[in-house]
Protein backbone atom coordinates (compact mmCIF):
# COMPACT_ATOMS: atom_id res chain seq x y z
CA UNK A 1 0.00 0.00 0.00
CA UNK A 2 1.30 3.42 -0.91
CA UNK A 3 1.78 5.58 2.14
CA UNK A 4 1.12 9.21 2.77
CA UNK A 5 4.21 11.31 3.45
CA UNK A 6 3.85 10.82 7.16
CA UNK A 7 1.75 8.36 9.06
CA UNK A 8 0.06 7.98 12.41
CA UNK A 9 3.36 7.33 14.18
CA UNK A 10 4.84 10.66 13.06
CA UNK A 11 1.82 12.88 13.59
CA UNK A 12 1.83 15.64 16.17
CA UNK A 13 -1.24 15.78 18.39
CA UNK A 14 -2.63 18.87 16.73
CA UNK A 15 -5.69 19.86 14.73
CA UNK A 16 -5.09 22.47 12.03
CA UNK A 17 -7.64 24.78 10.48
CA UNK A 18 -6.90 26.58 7.23
CA UNK A 19 -7.54 30.28 7.84
CA UNK A 20 -8.81 31.95 4.69
CA UNK A 21 -8.86 35.69 4.42
CA UNK A 22 -12.07 37.53 3.54
CA UNK A 23 -11.19 41.18 2.95
CA UNK A 24 -9.82 42.35 6.29
CA UNK A 25 -11.37 39.56 8.35
CA UNK A 26 -11.36 35.76 8.28
CA UNK A 27 -13.95 33.76 6.36
CA UNK A 28 -16.88 32.91 8.65
CA UNK A 29 -16.58 29.22 7.84
CA UNK A 30 -13.02 29.20 9.22
CA UNK A 31 -14.25 30.59 12.51
CA UNK A 32 -16.97 27.93 12.56
CA UNK A 33 -14.27 25.30 12.02
CA UNK A 34 -12.26 26.78 14.88
CA UNK A 35 -15.31 26.40 17.14
CA UNK A 36 -15.72 22.71 16.32
CA UNK A 37 -11.95 22.20 16.24
CA UNK A 38 -11.77 23.60 19.78
CA UNK A 39 -14.32 21.07 21.02
CA UNK A 40 -12.47 18.19 19.37
CA UNK A 41 -9.08 19.38 20.66
CA UNK A 42 -10.48 19.63 24.20
CA UNK A 43 -11.91 16.11 23.96
CA UNK A 44 -8.48 14.78 23.07
CA UNK A 45 -6.36 17.19 25.11
CA UNK A 46 -4.69 18.32 21.88
CA UNK A 47 -3.71 21.72 20.54
CA UNK A 48 -5.80 23.65 17.98
CA UNK A 49 -3.75 25.53 15.43
CA UNK A 50 -4.41 27.72 12.41
CA UNK A 51 -2.55 28.15 9.14
CA UNK A 52 -2.71 31.61 7.60
CA UNK A 53 -1.30 32.23 4.11
CA UNK A 54 -0.95 35.65 2.48
CA UNK A 55 0.96 38.89 2.54
CA UNK A 56 0.78 41.36 5.43
CA UNK A 57 -2.00 39.41 7.06
CA UNK A 58 -0.59 38.63 10.48
CA UNK A 59 -3.16 40.89 12.17
CA UNK A 60 -5.76 38.24 11.29
CA UNK A 61 -3.92 35.73 13.45
CA UNK A 62 -5.27 37.50 16.53
CA UNK A 63 -8.83 36.93 15.35
CA UNK A 64 -8.09 33.20 15.18
CA UNK A 65 -6.63 33.19 18.69
CA UNK A 66 -9.72 34.99 19.96
CA UNK A 67 -11.86 32.30 18.33
CA UNK A 68 -10.15 29.40 20.03
CA UNK A 69 -6.80 28.67 18.35
CA UNK A 70 -3.84 27.96 20.64
CA UNK A 71 -1.32 28.79 17.96
CA UNK A 72 -1.34 30.33 14.50
CA UNK A 73 1.28 29.70 11.84
CA UNK A 74 1.64 32.62 9.45
CA UNK A 75 3.26 32.31 6.05
CA UNK A 76 3.90 35.80 4.73
CA UNK A 77 5.02 35.77 1.11
CA UNK A 78 4.47 38.08 -1.88
CA UNK A 79 3.40 35.12 -4.03
CA UNK A 80 0.53 34.50 -1.63
CA UNK A 81 -0.89 38.03 -1.88
CA UNK A 82 -3.45 36.92 -4.48
CA UNK A 83 -4.70 33.39 -3.90
CA UNK A 84 -3.57 30.90 -6.53
CA UNK A 85 -4.07 27.22 -5.84
CA UNK A 86 -0.54 26.35 -6.92
CA UNK A 87 1.30 28.74 -4.59
CA UNK A 88 -1.11 28.08 -1.73
CA UNK A 89 -0.80 24.30 -2.16
CA UNK A 90 3.01 24.46 -2.06
CA UNK A 91 3.05 26.77 0.97
CA UNK A 92 0.54 24.61 2.86
CA UNK A 93 2.42 21.46 1.82
CA UNK A 94 5.70 22.74 3.28
CA UNK A 95 4.04 23.93 6.48
CA UNK A 96 2.18 20.64 6.96
CA UNK A 97 5.07 18.29 6.23
CA UNK A 98 7.23 20.39 8.56
CA UNK A 99 4.83 20.23 11.51
CA UNK A 100 2.82 17.06 10.71
CA UNK A 101 -0.62 17.85 12.13
CA UNK A 102 -3.03 14.96 12.62
CA UNK A 103 -5.91 16.79 10.93
CA UNK A 104 -6.21 19.60 8.40
CA UNK A 105 -9.67 21.15 8.08
CA UNK A 106 -10.71 23.47 5.25
CA UNK A 107 -13.85 25.55 4.73
CA UNK A 108 -15.73 25.13 1.46
CA UNK A 109 -15.25 28.34 -0.50
CA UNK A 110 -14.16 28.42 -4.16
CA UNK A 111 -10.52 28.83 -3.10
CA UNK A 112 -10.76 26.43 -0.16
CA UNK A 113 -12.01 23.70 -2.46
CA UNK A 114 -9.26 24.35 -4.99
CA UNK A 115 -6.62 24.15 -2.31
CA UNK A 116 -8.00 21.06 -0.58
CA UNK A 117 -8.31 19.01 -3.78
CA UNK A 118 -4.73 19.69 -4.88
CA UNK A 119 -3.18 19.43 -1.45
CA UNK A 120 -4.72 16.05 -0.63
CA UNK A 121 -3.17 14.57 -3.76
CA UNK A 122 0.22 16.16 -3.09
CA UNK A 123 0.16 14.76 0.46
CA UNK A 124 -1.10 11.38 -0.86
CA UNK A 125 -3.84 11.46 1.71
CA UNK A 126 -7.62 11.21 1.67
CA UNK A 127 -10.12 14.00 1.70
CA UNK A 128 -13.63 13.90 3.10
CA UNK A 129 -15.43 16.64 1.27
CA UNK A 130 -18.56 18.56 2.24
CA UNK A 131 -18.88 16.93 5.65
CA UNK A 132 -22.09 17.52 7.58
CA UNK A 133 -20.40 16.81 10.90
CA UNK A 134 -16.94 16.12 12.33
CA UNK A 135 -16.16 14.29 15.56
CA UNK A 136 -13.22 12.44 17.02
CA UNK A 137 -13.00 8.99 18.45
CA UNK A 138 -11.63 9.80 21.93
CA UNK A 139 -9.86 6.43 22.21
CA UNK A 140 -8.06 6.38 18.89
CA UNK A 141 -7.83 10.08 18.09
CA UNK A 142 -9.19 9.29 14.63
CA UNK A 143 -11.39 11.84 12.89
CA UNK A 144 -14.88 10.61 12.03
CA UNK A 145 -16.41 12.63 9.20
CA UNK A 146 -20.08 12.45 8.47
CA UNK A 147 -21.27 12.95 4.91
CA UNK A 148 -24.84 12.72 3.73
CA UNK A 149 -25.46 9.87 1.36
CA UNK A 150 -26.89 10.16 -2.09
CA UNK A 151 -30.52 11.18 -2.01
CA UNK A 152 -30.28 11.85 1.70
CA UNK A 153 -31.86 10.00 4.57
CA UNK A 154 -28.63 8.17 5.28
CA UNK A 155 -25.37 9.41 6.64
CA UNK A 156 -22.07 7.74 5.97
CA UNK A 157 -19.30 7.89 8.55
CA UNK A 158 -15.87 8.06 6.98
CA UNK A 159 -12.51 7.46 8.60
CA UNK A 160 -8.94 7.42 7.47
CA UNK A 161 -7.09 5.08 9.81
CA UNK A 162 -3.65 5.03 8.15
CA UNK A 163 -2.77 8.24 6.42
CA UNK A 164 -2.07 11.71 7.71
CA UNK A 165 -3.12 14.44 7.78
CA UNK A 166 -6.80 13.55 7.92
CA UNK A 167 -8.28 16.14 5.59
CA UNK A 168 -11.90 17.30 5.58
CA UNK A 169 -13.86 20.18 4.10
CA UNK A 170 -17.04 21.66 5.58
CA UNK A 171 -19.51 24.13 4.10
CA UNK A 172 -20.42 27.43 5.73
CA UNK A 173 -23.24 27.24 8.27
CA UNK A 174 -22.75 23.63 9.37
CA UNK A 175 -21.12 24.60 12.67
CA UNK A 176 -22.11 27.42 14.96
CA UNK A 177 -19.62 30.32 14.98
CA UNK A 178 -17.72 30.90 18.24
CA UNK A 179 -18.08 33.87 20.53
CA UNK A 180 -14.71 35.65 20.12
CA UNK A 181 -12.82 36.32 23.35
CA UNK A 182 -10.41 39.23 22.72
CA UNK A 183 -8.60 38.42 25.98
CA UNK A 184 -7.63 34.95 24.79
CA UNK A 185 -3.91 34.68 24.02
CA UNK A 186 -1.78 32.24 22.12
CA UNK A 187 1.30 31.90 20.02
CA UNK A 188 1.90 33.38 16.57
CA UNK A 189 4.71 31.74 14.63
CA UNK A 190 6.04 32.90 11.27
CA UNK A 191 7.05 30.10 8.92
CA UNK A 192 9.40 30.40 5.96
CA UNK A 193 8.48 28.60 2.78
CA UNK A 194 10.41 28.28 -0.46
CA UNK A 195 8.21 29.04 -3.47
CA UNK A 196 11.06 29.53 -5.95
CA UNK A 197 10.34 26.38 -7.88
CA UNK A 198 6.57 26.81 -7.87
CA UNK A 199 5.59 27.73 -11.43
CA UNK A 200 3.80 31.02 -12.15
CA UNK A 201 1.01 29.58 -14.25
CA UNK A 202 -2.17 31.08 -12.95
CA UNK A 203 -2.97 34.69 -12.18
CA UNK A 204 -5.97 36.85 -11.45
CA UNK A 205 -6.82 39.10 -14.42
CA UNK A 206 -9.77 40.83 -12.83
CA UNK A 207 -11.62 40.63 -9.56
CA UNK A 208 -14.68 42.56 -8.53
CA UNK A 209 -16.30 42.04 -5.18
CA UNK A 210 -19.20 44.04 -3.91
CA UNK A 211 -21.34 43.68 -0.84
CA UNK A 212 -21.64 39.95 -0.25
CA UNK A 213 -24.98 38.47 0.56
CA UNK A 214 -24.95 36.45 3.78
CA UNK A 215 -28.10 34.35 4.08
CA UNK A 216 -26.75 32.61 7.17
CA UNK A 217 -27.34 35.79 9.21
CA UNK A 218 -30.96 36.37 8.16
CA UNK A 219 -33.44 35.94 11.05
CA UNK A 220 -36.29 35.19 8.64
CA UNK A 221 -35.88 33.20 5.46
CA UNK A 222 -38.52 32.95 2.74
CA UNK A 223 -37.56 30.01 0.54
CA UNK A 224 -39.17 29.63 -2.87
CA UNK A 225 -39.23 26.40 -4.82
CA UNK A 226 -40.29 25.31 -8.25
CA UNK A 227 -43.90 25.65 -7.08
CA UNK A 228 -43.75 29.47 -7.04
CA UNK A 229 -43.29 29.31 -10.78
CA UNK A 230 -40.65 32.05 -10.94
CA UNK A 231 -42.66 34.61 -9.00
CA UNK A 232 -40.02 35.73 -6.55
CA UNK A 233 -41.29 39.32 -6.46
CA UNK A 234 -44.14 38.34 -4.15
CA UNK A 235 -41.71 36.48 -1.91
CA UNK A 236 -39.43 39.55 -1.83
CA UNK A 237 -42.36 41.64 -0.70
CA UNK A 238 -43.09 39.19 2.11
CA UNK A 239 -39.40 39.09 3.10
CA UNK A 240 -39.34 42.90 3.15
CA UNK A 241 -42.21 43.01 5.64
CA UNK A 242 -40.42 40.61 7.99
CA UNK A 243 -36.86 41.97 7.65
CA UNK A 244 -35.95 38.69 6.05
CA UNK A 245 -34.16 37.41 2.99
CA UNK A 246 -35.34 35.38 0.02
CA UNK A 247 -33.75 32.01 -0.60
CA UNK A 248 -34.54 29.28 -3.12
CA UNK A 249 -34.25 25.62 -3.96
CA UNK A 250 -32.02 24.59 -6.77
CA UNK A 251 -34.47 24.49 -9.71
CA UNK A 252 -35.37 28.24 -9.67
CA UNK A 253 -31.64 29.03 -9.36
CA UNK A 254 -30.82 26.79 -12.32
CA UNK A 255 -33.65 28.43 -14.26
CA UNK A 256 -32.17 31.86 -13.59
CA UNK A 257 -34.99 33.31 -11.44
CA UNK A 258 -32.69 33.86 -8.44
CA UNK A 259 -28.93 34.32 -7.93
CA UNK A 260 -26.97 31.22 -6.99
CA UNK A 261 -25.87 32.86 -3.74
CA UNK A 262 -29.46 32.40 -2.56
CA UNK A 263 -29.57 28.64 -3.08
CA UNK A 264 -30.24 26.78 0.15
CA UNK A 265 -29.20 23.21 0.83
CA UNK A 266 -26.46 20.70 0.46
CA UNK A 267 -24.84 22.44 -2.49
CA UNK A 268 -26.00 25.87 -1.37
CA UNK A 269 -26.07 27.62 1.97
CA UNK A 270 -26.90 26.05 5.33
CA UNK A 271 -28.95 28.51 7.40
CA UNK A 272 -30.33 28.54 10.92
CA UNK A 273 -32.93 31.35 10.93
CA UNK A 274 -35.55 31.97 13.59
CA UNK A 275 -38.29 31.40 11.02
CA UNK A 276 -38.15 29.68 7.64
CA UNK A 277 -41.19 29.84 5.36
CA UNK A 278 -40.98 27.43 2.43
CA UNK A 279 -43.23 28.17 -0.53
CA UNK A 280 -43.80 25.58 -3.26
CA UNK A 281 -40.90 23.43 -2.02
CA UNK A 282 -41.30 19.65 -2.08
CA UNK A 283 -38.80 18.96 0.70
CA UNK A 284 -36.01 17.00 -0.99
CA UNK A 285 -33.31 16.03 1.48
CA UNK A 286 -30.75 18.09 -0.48
CA UNK A 287 -32.81 21.15 0.38
CA UNK A 288 -33.92 20.24 3.89
CA UNK A 289 -30.35 19.99 5.22
CA UNK A 290 -30.11 23.73 4.57
CA UNK A 291 -32.98 24.74 6.88
CA UNK A 292 -33.40 21.89 9.33
CA UNK A 293 -31.86 23.88 12.15
CA UNK A 294 -34.38 26.72 11.84
CA UNK A 295 -36.25 27.36 15.08
CA UNK A 296 -39.66 27.39 13.39
CA UNK A 297 -40.49 26.06 9.94
CA UNK A 298 -43.67 26.98 8.08
CA UNK A 299 -44.41 25.08 4.86
CA UNK A 300 -46.86 26.03 2.13
CA UNK A 301 -47.48 23.40 -0.53
CA UNK A 302 -50.58 22.35 -2.47
CA UNK A 303 -49.75 18.67 -2.23
CA UNK A 304 -50.81 17.22 1.14
CA UNK A 305 -48.32 14.37 0.63
CA UNK A 306 -45.32 16.66 0.11
CA UNK A 307 -42.38 15.45 2.24
CA UNK A 308 -41.68 19.02 3.40
CA UNK A 309 -44.59 18.69 5.87
CA UNK A 310 -42.57 16.09 7.83
CA UNK A 311 -40.02 18.80 8.56
CA UNK A 312 -42.41 21.66 9.35
CA UNK A 313 -43.98 23.03 12.52
CA UNK A 314 -46.86 24.70 10.69
CA UNK A 315 -48.19 23.04 7.56
CA UNK A 316 -50.43 24.75 5.04
CA UNK A 317 -51.94 22.70 2.26
CA UNK A 318 -52.76 25.38 -0.26
CA UNK A 319 -51.78 27.39 -3.28
CA UNK A 320 -48.83 29.75 -2.69
CA UNK A 321 -50.48 32.23 -5.09
CA UNK A 322 -53.34 32.60 -2.57
CA UNK A 323 -51.66 32.07 0.80
CA UNK A 324 -48.64 34.34 0.34
CA UNK A 325 -50.64 37.40 -0.85
CA UNK A 326 -53.13 36.87 2.00
CA UNK A 327 -50.25 36.77 4.47
CA UNK A 328 -48.79 39.95 2.97
CA UNK A 329 -52.15 41.73 3.34
CA UNK A 330 -52.45 40.52 6.90
CA UNK A 331 -48.95 41.70 7.82
CA UNK A 332 -49.59 45.08 6.20
CA UNK A 333 -52.77 45.55 8.20
CA UNK A 334 -52.19 48.74 10.23
CA UNK A 335 -54.15 47.35 13.18
CA UNK A 336 -51.35 44.82 13.71
CA UNK A 337 -48.73 47.48 14.20
CA UNK A 338 -50.41 48.61 17.40
CA UNK A 339 -50.67 45.04 18.60
CA UNK A 340 -54.49 45.34 18.92
CA UNK A 341 -56.16 43.09 16.42
Amino acid at each position, binding site marked *: *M*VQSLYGVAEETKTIWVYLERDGDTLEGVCLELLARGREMADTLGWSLEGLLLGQNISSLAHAALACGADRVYVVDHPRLADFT*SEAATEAAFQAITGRRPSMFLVGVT*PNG*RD*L*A*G*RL*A*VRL*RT*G*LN*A*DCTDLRVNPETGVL*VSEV*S*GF*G*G*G*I*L*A*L*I*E*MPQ*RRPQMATVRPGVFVPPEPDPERTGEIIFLDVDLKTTPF*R*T*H*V*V*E*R*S*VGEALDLTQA*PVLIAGGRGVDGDFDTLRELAGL*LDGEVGATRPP*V*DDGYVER*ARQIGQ*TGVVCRPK*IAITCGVSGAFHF*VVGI*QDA*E*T*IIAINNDPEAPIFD*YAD*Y*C*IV*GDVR*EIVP*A*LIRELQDPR*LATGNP
Partner: protein
Amino acid sequence: MLRIIVCVKIVPKPEEVSVDPETWRLDRSHARSEINPPDMNAMEIALRLKDRHGARLDILSMGPPFFDPILRVALAMGADHVTLLSDRAFGGADTLATTYTLAKGIEKLGGADLIICGEESSDGATGQVPAGLAEWLDIGQITMVHDAQVDLERRVVRGRREIKGGHEILETTLPAVLSVATACNEPRFMDYRIKEWAFDPEQVTVWGRNDIDADPDLIGAPGSPTIVSGLEEATSRERKRRFLQGSPEDIARQLSAVIRQAI
Protein backbone atom coordinates in the same frame (compact mmCIF):
# COMPACT_ATOMS: atom_id res chain seq x y z
CA MET B 1 -5.06 21.89 -33.30
CA LEU B 2 -6.57 22.31 -29.87
CA ARG B 3 -6.89 19.03 -27.98
CA ILE B 4 -9.64 18.74 -25.39
CA ILE B 5 -10.58 15.90 -23.05
CA VAL B 6 -13.90 16.12 -21.22
CA CYS B 7 -14.23 13.89 -18.14
CA VAL B 8 -17.73 12.49 -18.01
CA LYS B 9 -19.29 10.44 -15.25
CA ILE B 10 -22.46 8.39 -15.57
CA VAL B 11 -24.79 8.65 -12.57
CA PRO B 12 -28.16 7.20 -11.62
CA LYS B 13 -31.04 9.65 -11.99
CA PRO B 14 -31.37 11.03 -8.46
CA GLU B 15 -35.16 10.80 -8.34
CA GLU B 16 -35.03 7.10 -9.15
CA VAL B 17 -32.63 6.03 -6.43
CA SER B 18 -34.22 4.82 -3.23
CA VAL B 19 -32.93 3.89 0.17
CA ASP B 20 -33.62 0.40 1.46
CA PRO B 21 -35.36 1.06 4.80
CA GLU B 22 -33.89 -2.10 6.34
CA THR B 23 -30.23 -1.79 5.44
CA TRP B 24 -30.05 1.92 4.57
CA ARG B 25 -28.18 0.93 1.46
CA LEU B 26 -28.81 2.69 -1.79
CA ASP B 27 -30.97 0.81 -4.19
CA ARG B 28 -29.92 1.82 -7.68
CA SER B 29 -31.38 -1.24 -9.34
CA HIS B 30 -34.47 0.56 -10.58
CA ALA B 31 -32.71 3.78 -11.46
CA ARG B 32 -31.92 4.66 -15.03
CA SER B 33 -28.57 6.29 -15.65
CA GLU B 34 -27.65 9.54 -17.34
CA ILE B 35 -24.63 11.71 -17.99
CA ASN B 36 -23.89 13.61 -14.78
CA PRO B 37 -25.83 16.84 -15.55
CA PRO B 38 -22.90 19.19 -14.75
CA ASP B 39 -20.80 17.25 -17.28
CA MET B 40 -23.29 18.26 -19.97
CA ASN B 41 -22.37 21.88 -19.19
CA ALA B 42 -18.69 20.90 -19.47
CA MET B 43 -19.43 19.27 -22.85
CA GLU B 44 -21.13 22.42 -24.06
CA ILE B 45 -18.11 24.60 -23.19
CA ALA B 46 -15.86 22.11 -24.99
CA LEU B 47 -18.09 22.03 -28.06
CA ARG B 48 -18.17 25.84 -28.23
CA LEU B 49 -14.37 25.87 -28.19
CA LYS B 50 -14.39 23.21 -30.90
CA ASP B 51 -16.83 25.25 -33.01
CA ARG B 52 -14.61 28.27 -32.67
CA HIS B 53 -11.07 26.93 -32.97
CA GLY B 54 -11.52 23.43 -34.34
CA ALA B 55 -10.48 20.77 -31.86
CA ARG B 56 -10.05 17.10 -31.28
CA LEU B 57 -12.52 16.29 -28.50
CA ASP B 58 -12.10 13.11 -26.48
CA ILE B 59 -14.40 11.88 -23.73
CA LEU B 60 -12.86 10.06 -20.78
CA SER B 61 -14.87 8.17 -18.21
CA MET B 62 -14.10 5.69 -15.48
CA GLY B 63 -16.77 3.16 -14.58
CA PRO B 64 -18.39 -0.19 -15.35
CA PRO B 65 -19.08 -1.39 -18.92
CA PHE B 66 -22.76 -0.40 -18.77
CA PHE B 67 -21.61 3.24 -19.06
CA ASP B 68 -20.83 2.61 -22.73
CA PRO B 69 -24.24 3.17 -24.37
CA ILE B 70 -24.91 6.28 -22.29
CA LEU B 71 -21.54 7.79 -23.21
CA ARG B 72 -22.57 7.67 -26.86
CA VAL B 73 -24.83 10.63 -26.19
CA ALA B 74 -21.61 12.66 -25.95
CA LEU B 75 -20.55 11.39 -29.37
CA ALA B 76 -23.90 12.36 -30.84
CA MET B 77 -23.46 15.84 -29.36
CA GLY B 78 -20.20 16.29 -31.25
CA ALA B 79 -17.34 14.52 -29.45
CA ASP B 80 -14.82 12.61 -31.57
CA HIS B 81 -14.12 9.56 -29.44
CA VAL B 82 -14.86 7.97 -26.07
CA THR B 83 -12.40 6.15 -23.83
CA LEU B 84 -13.89 4.19 -20.95
CA LEU B 85 -11.55 3.11 -18.14
CA SER B 86 -13.16 -0.06 -16.93
CA ASP B 87 -11.64 -2.75 -14.75
CA ARG B 88 -12.80 -4.55 -11.62
CA ALA B 89 -9.60 -3.35 -9.97
CA PHE B 90 -10.78 0.29 -10.30
CA GLY B 91 -13.81 -0.40 -8.05
CA GLY B 92 -14.15 1.19 -4.64
CA ALA B 93 -12.05 4.22 -5.58
CA ASP B 94 -12.25 7.41 -3.51
CA THR B 95 -11.11 10.80 -4.82
CA LEU B 96 -7.40 10.00 -4.58
CA ALA B 97 -7.68 6.76 -6.56
CA THR B 98 -10.21 8.20 -9.01
CA THR B 99 -8.04 11.19 -9.87
CA TYR B 100 -4.96 8.97 -10.23
CA THR B 101 -6.77 6.60 -12.60
CA LEU B 102 -8.22 9.41 -14.72
CA ALA B 103 -4.80 11.11 -14.83
CA LYS B 104 -3.19 7.88 -16.10
CA GLY B 105 -5.91 7.67 -18.75
CA ILE B 106 -5.22 11.25 -19.82
CA GLU B 107 -1.48 10.53 -20.07
CA LYS B 108 -2.16 7.46 -22.14
CA LEU B 109 -4.35 9.50 -24.48
CA GLY B 110 -1.30 11.68 -25.05
CA GLY B 111 -2.46 14.51 -22.83
CA ALA B 112 -4.48 17.51 -23.98
CA ASP B 113 -4.43 21.30 -23.95
CA LEU B 114 -7.57 21.40 -21.86
CA ILE B 115 -9.10 18.85 -19.52
CA ILE B 116 -12.66 19.93 -18.77
CA CYS B 117 -14.76 18.54 -15.91
CA GLY B 118 -18.16 19.24 -14.45
CA GLU B 119 -18.35 21.15 -11.19
CA GLU B 120 -19.42 18.13 -9.17
CA SER B 121 -20.94 14.71 -9.59
CA SER B 122 -24.58 14.47 -8.64
CA ASP B 123 -24.06 11.22 -6.72
CA GLY B 124 -21.06 12.44 -4.78
CA ALA B 125 -21.14 16.19 -5.17
CA THR B 126 -17.74 16.82 -3.74
CA GLY B 127 -16.20 18.60 -6.70
CA GLN B 128 -12.70 17.55 -5.69
CA VAL B 129 -11.83 15.56 -8.80
CA PRO B 130 -10.83 18.53 -11.02
CA ALA B 131 -8.27 19.95 -8.55
CA GLY B 132 -6.91 16.49 -7.82
CA LEU B 133 -6.48 15.82 -11.54
CA ALA B 134 -4.61 19.08 -12.02
CA GLU B 135 -2.24 18.07 -9.22
CA TRP B 136 -1.49 14.58 -10.62
CA LEU B 137 -0.91 16.13 -14.05
CA ASP B 138 1.08 19.01 -12.50
CA ILE B 139 -0.76 21.71 -14.45
CA GLY B 140 -2.88 24.78 -13.63
CA GLN B 141 -6.58 24.80 -12.87
CA ILE B 142 -9.52 27.18 -13.02
CA THR B 143 -12.63 25.80 -11.36
CA MET B 144 -16.34 26.64 -11.59
CA VAL B 145 -16.00 28.75 -14.73
CA HIS B 146 -19.02 30.11 -16.57
CA ASP B 147 -17.12 30.51 -19.81
CA ALA B 148 -13.65 29.92 -21.19
CA GLN B 149 -11.58 31.67 -23.84
CA VAL B 150 -8.49 30.14 -25.34
CA ASP B 151 -5.68 32.19 -26.86
CA LEU B 152 -3.76 29.67 -28.95
CA GLU B 153 -0.92 32.07 -29.78
CA ARG B 154 -0.15 32.86 -26.14
CA ARG B 155 -1.18 29.34 -25.15
CA VAL B 156 -3.38 30.47 -22.26
CA VAL B 157 -6.96 29.97 -21.17
CA ARG B 158 -9.10 32.51 -19.35
CA GLY B 159 -12.12 31.63 -17.26
CA ARG B 160 -14.66 33.72 -15.43
CA ARG B 161 -16.10 32.49 -12.18
CA GLU B 162 -18.41 33.78 -9.48
CA ILE B 163 -17.05 34.41 -6.02
CA LYS B 164 -18.73 35.73 -2.90
CA GLY B 165 -20.28 39.08 -3.82
CA GLY B 166 -18.79 39.29 -7.31
CA HIS B 167 -16.71 37.55 -9.92
CA GLU B 168 -13.12 37.03 -10.97
CA ILE B 169 -11.33 36.23 -14.20
CA LEU B 170 -8.36 33.90 -13.95
CA GLU B 171 -5.84 33.07 -16.61
CA THR B 172 -3.58 30.04 -16.70
CA THR B 173 -1.17 28.54 -19.19
CA LEU B 174 -2.08 25.52 -21.30
CA PRO B 175 -2.34 22.68 -20.60
CA ALA B 176 -4.86 23.23 -17.83
CA VAL B 177 -7.83 21.71 -16.03
CA LEU B 178 -11.16 23.54 -16.01
CA SER B 179 -14.30 22.74 -14.10
CA VAL B 180 -17.55 24.24 -15.34
CA ALA B 181 -20.23 25.81 -13.14
CA THR B 182 -23.39 23.72 -12.97
CA ALA B 183 -26.27 24.97 -15.15
CA CYS B 184 -24.20 27.87 -16.57
CA ASN B 185 -25.22 27.08 -20.15
CA GLU B 186 -27.81 25.24 -22.22
CA PRO B 187 -26.25 21.96 -23.45
CA ARG B 188 -26.99 21.31 -27.11
CA PHE B 189 -29.13 18.45 -28.34
CA MET B 190 -27.82 15.34 -30.00
CA ASP B 191 -27.38 15.48 -33.76
CA TYR B 192 -29.54 12.60 -34.97
CA ARG B 193 -27.77 12.57 -38.35
CA ILE B 194 -24.69 11.08 -36.68
CA LYS B 195 -26.54 8.70 -34.39
CA GLU B 196 -25.58 5.67 -36.41
CA TRP B 197 -21.93 6.68 -36.38
CA ALA B 198 -22.13 7.27 -32.64
CA PHE B 199 -23.31 3.70 -32.06
CA ASP B 200 -20.53 2.17 -34.14
CA PRO B 201 -18.54 -0.05 -31.72
CA GLU B 202 -15.27 1.55 -32.87
CA GLN B 203 -16.10 4.92 -31.38
CA VAL B 204 -15.64 3.65 -27.83
CA THR B 205 -12.32 2.25 -26.58
CA VAL B 206 -12.27 0.37 -23.28
CA TRP B 207 -9.02 0.31 -21.31
CA GLY B 208 -8.20 -1.77 -18.25
CA ARG B 209 -5.47 -1.23 -15.67
CA ASN B 210 -2.68 -2.66 -17.83
CA ASP B 211 -3.60 -0.45 -20.78
CA ILE B 212 -2.90 2.65 -18.72
CA ASP B 213 0.08 1.20 -16.77
CA ALA B 214 -1.68 1.86 -13.49
CA ASP B 215 0.19 1.15 -10.27
CA PRO B 216 -1.97 -1.49 -8.50
CA ASP B 217 -1.33 0.21 -5.15
CA LEU B 218 -2.86 3.46 -6.33
CA ILE B 219 -6.13 2.28 -7.89
CA GLY B 220 -9.47 1.07 -6.55
CA ALA B 221 -9.93 0.19 -2.90
CA PRO B 222 -6.20 -0.34 -2.14
CA GLY B 223 -5.44 3.15 -3.46
CA SER B 224 -8.20 4.75 -1.41
CA PRO B 225 -7.21 6.05 2.04
CA THR B 226 -10.76 6.66 3.23
CA ILE B 227 -13.08 3.92 4.44
CA VAL B 228 -16.76 3.99 5.26
CA SER B 229 -16.90 2.92 8.89
CA GLY B 230 -20.63 3.15 9.39
CA LEU B 231 -24.02 4.16 8.08
CA GLU B 232 -26.56 6.02 10.13
CA GLU B 233 -30.08 7.11 9.58
CA ALA B 234 -30.32 10.87 9.29
CA THR B 235 -32.36 12.09 12.20
CA SER B 236 -33.94 15.47 12.15
CA ARG B 237 -35.37 17.54 14.90
CA GLU B 238 -38.92 16.81 16.11
CA ARG B 239 -41.39 19.21 14.55
CA LYS B 240 -44.91 20.17 15.57
CA ARG B 241 -46.41 19.28 12.17
CA ARG B 242 -49.58 21.22 12.91
CA PHE B 243 -51.84 21.63 9.89
CA LEU B 244 -53.55 25.03 9.72
CA GLN B 245 -57.07 25.03 8.26
CA GLY B 246 -59.44 27.62 6.86
CA SER B 247 -59.66 30.19 4.10
CA PRO B 248 -56.44 31.90 2.95
CA GLU B 249 -57.42 34.84 5.20
CA ASP B 250 -57.94 32.56 8.24
CA ILE B 251 -54.61 30.92 7.61
CA ALA B 252 -52.89 34.27 7.15
CA ARG B 253 -54.20 35.43 10.53
CA GLN B 254 -52.97 32.28 12.28
CA LEU B 255 -49.61 32.55 10.54
CA SER B 256 -49.09 36.15 11.49
CA ALA B 257 -49.67 35.21 15.14
CA VAL B 258 -47.16 32.37 14.85
CA ILE B 259 -44.65 34.70 13.20
CA ARG B 260 -45.02 37.46 15.76
CA GLN B 261 -44.42 34.96 18.51
CA ALA B 262 -41.42 33.33 16.89
CA ILE B 263 -39.51 36.50 16.02
